[in-house]
C-alpha cells in the first residue's frame, strides 16, 4: 500500500505549484497592471490623502518583488484587504457568505448527479430508446442554456404563473428568523436546532436556484456518463463477465458502472469550474446572499479589494475541490498508485 500513499502524497504536492501560480496571477491582477492600484483600492470616493495612505499600507511605493513578498505575507495572515463598501475585512465578509454559496452549489451538484448519472446509464444501456433521445436533447439544450436566463424563466413559471415558489429574494423569507449559526448551512443549522418550519422555509427558497444550477451541470455529467458507460459496456471485460454467466445486474453495476465512474469523476473537476462561475449569475438572479452576489455588488461600486479577494478565494476553492476529486479517485480506483503513470 506504500505506492498508494506515495501517489496520494504526490498528488497533494502537485497542488503546491498550482497554488503558487494562482497567487502570482492574483498578484498580477491586483498590483502589476497598468494604472494606479492605490486609486483602485481606495475606491470611488477616495481623497488624495486616503489614496496615499493606501499606497503606504500596501507598500505600493516599493519595487515589485518586495510588493509581492508583502502580498504573500498578507495572504498568509489571511488578510485579503479591506472592503470599501462594507467597511469590514474582505476575508471576514467572504467567510460569512461562503456557506450560502456552498449550500447552493452542493445541493445543485448532488441534485444533478442524482439525475444525470442514472440518465446517462439508462441512455447507454438502451441506445436509440426514448431515454437516449431525452438524454441527447437535455445534453444539447443544457450546454446552450444561459444560466441566468433559465433562472428567470423558472421564476416566471413557478413564482408568477403557478405561485408555488416563494419570492426569489435570498435564503429565507423574512417571516422566519435565521437559525442559530453552527455551520452556516441553513438546512443543517435548522435541523440541529430542530426548527422544522424554518428548515422547510429554507428548503423552499433553495429549490429554484438549485434547480437552475443543476440544469446547467446536468449536461456535461450526463454526456460523460453515457459515453463512459457505452465504452465500458463494449469492453472485453464486460464480454468476459457476460460469457462467464454473471447476471446482467452484476455486469452492469459491478463491472461496467464502476469503471465508467472514473471518467465521470474526472469530468466533475471541469463541472466545478463551470458551476463556480454560473453560481455568480444564479446568485444575482435569486438575490442569494453568497460570495457571488457579494462580488457582483462589489463590482458595481468598484470595490476593488473585495472583487480580487473573491477571485483568489474562488481559485483556491477550485484547486481544493480538484484535489478532493483526485483523492476520491484514489479511493474508487484500486489501481491508483500501482501503475507507473
Amino acid at each position, binding site marked *: 500500500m506504500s505506492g498508494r500513499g506515495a501517489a496520494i502524497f504526490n498528488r497533494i504536492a502537485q497542488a503546491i505549484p498550482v497554488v503558487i501560480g494562482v497567487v502570482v496571477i492574483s498578484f498580477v491582477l491586483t498590483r502589476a497592471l497598468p494604472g494606479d492600484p492605490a486609486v483602485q483600492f481606495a475606491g470611488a470616493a477616495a481623497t488624495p490623502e486616503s489614496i496615499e495612505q493606501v499606497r503606504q499600507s500596501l507598500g505600493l511605493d516599493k519595487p515589485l518583488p518586495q510588493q509581492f513578498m508583502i502580498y504573500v505575507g498578507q495572504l498568509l495572515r489571511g488578510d485579503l484587504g479591506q472592503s470599501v463598501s462594507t467597511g469590514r475585512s474582505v476575508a471576514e465578509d467572504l467567510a460569512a457568505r461562503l456557506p450560502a454559496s456552498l449550500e447552493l452549489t452542493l445541493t445543485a451538484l448532488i441534485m444533478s448527479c442524482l439525475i444525470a448519472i442514472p440518465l446517462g446509464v439508462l441512455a447507454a444501456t438502451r441506445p436509440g430508446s426514448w431515454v437516449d433521445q431525452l438524454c441527447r436533447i437535455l445534453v444539447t439544450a443544457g450546454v*446552450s442554456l444561459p444560466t441566468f436566463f433559465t433562472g428567470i424563466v423558472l421564476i416566471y413559471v413557478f413564482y408568477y404563473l403557478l405561485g408555488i415558489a416563494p419570492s426569489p429574494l435570498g435564503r429565507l423569507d423574512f417571516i422566519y428568523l435565521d437559525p442559530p449559526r453552527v455551520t452556516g448551512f441553513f438546512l443543517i443549522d435548522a435541523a440541529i436546532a430542530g426548527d422544522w418550519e424554518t428548515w422547510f422555509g429554507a428548503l423552499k427558497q433553495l429549490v429554484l436556484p438549485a434547480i437552475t444550477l443543476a440544469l446547467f451541470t446536468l449536461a456535461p455529467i450526463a454526456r460523460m456518463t453515457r459515453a463512459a458507460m457505452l465504452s465500458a459496456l463494449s469492453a472485453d471485460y464486460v464480454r468476459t463477465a457476460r460469457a462467464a454467466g454473471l447476471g446482467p445486474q452484476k455486469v452492469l453495476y459491478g463491472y461496467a458502472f464502476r469503471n465508467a465512474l472514473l471518467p465521470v469523476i474526472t469530468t466533475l473537476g471541469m463541472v466545478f469550474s463551470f458551476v463556480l462561475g454560473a453560481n455568480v*449569475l444564479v446568485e444575482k438572479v435569486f438575490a442569494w446572499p453568497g460570495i457571488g452576489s457579494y462580488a457582483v455588488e462589489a463590482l458595481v461600486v468598484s470595490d476593488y479589494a473585495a472583487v480580487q479577494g473573491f477571485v483568489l478565494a474562488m481559485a483556491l476553492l477550485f484547486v481544493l475541490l480538484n484535489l478532493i476529486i483526485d483523492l476520491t479517485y484514489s479511493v474508487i480506483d484500486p489501481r491508483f498508485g500501482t501503475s507507473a503513470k
Partner: protein
Amino acid sequence: MSDATIPSAAVPAAKPSRSGTFAHILYVLRENPVTAISFAMFAFLIGSAVLGPSLVPYDPLATDSVNALQPPSFAHWFGTDNLGRDIFSRVIVATRLDLIISVAAVAMSFVIGSVLGAIAGYRGGWIDIILNRILDTIMAFPLFVLAMGIVAALGNSVANIIYATAIINIPFYARLVRAEVNIRSEAGFTLAAKLAGNSDARVLAFHIFPNALPPMMVQVSLNLGWAILNAAGLSFIGLGVRPPTPEWGIMVAEGANFIVSGEWWIALFPGLWLMLAVFTFNLMGDGLRDIVDPRRRT
C-alpha cells in the same frame, strides 16, 4: 464554410479532387439535417448582424413612454420595454455587438493560442514546460470568475470583455495546437521539408500547422457559443456594455426586474436569441466535426 482548410483532412485517403470533399459535405448535410439547419441559422445570424440595423422597424434606442411595457403585438412583435423601446429591434440590432465580442475574442485566442502552442509543440524543452505551467495556472481558476477579475482589473469596457474572454479561451487552443504540432514535429514530411531548405518558421507555419486546422475549426465553433454565453454573462452582472446599448445579456438583466410582476417578454426574447445563437454554434460544431473527422461521429 471553410472549404479551403477541410479537403486535406476530410478525405485523406481519397483522391484530392474538390468534388470528393464537396460530395462528402453534401452527404453529411443530407444524412444529418440538423447540421443543415444549424448552417441556415448561422446564415440568419450573420444576416441580422450585417443588415439588421438597417432593416429593423424602430430605432433601438428611441424611447416612447406612451407605449411602455406593451406585450407583443402586431406593431411591436416582441413587445416594448419599460421605456417603450421596441424589443424586436433591440434584439436584432444586438446581434452585431454580441457576435463582434465573441468573434473578436475567439479570433484573438485562436491566434495567440496557435502561436504559443505551435512554438511550444515544435521546440519542446523549457518553453514547453513554462507554457504548460502558465496554462495550468489559468485553468486553475474557475474561468468565468477569472474573466470577472480581469475585467475588474483592466477596467470596465467592451474591449476588456473581449480581452478577458480571449485570455480564458487561450489554453484550449494552445493545448490543441501543441498536441497536433508535437506529434508531427518529427514526421517524415516535416523532415523532408527541412531537408529541402525551409526555415523552421516556414516548416511550422506552412507544413505542420495546417494539419491542426480541421480540429481547430471544430473548437472555434464550439467555443464561439461559449464565448457568447460568457460575454452575455459578464454584461448580465453589469460589466462591459453600458445600459442603453442593446446587448442580449444586459437586456435579460433589465427584463429580470419585471419578471416578478409578469412582464415576461422583456427578458424572454433576448434570452431566447442568446440561446438560439449558442445552440447554433454548438450544433454547427458537432456538424463540422462530422465533416472534418468522420471517424469521431457521435
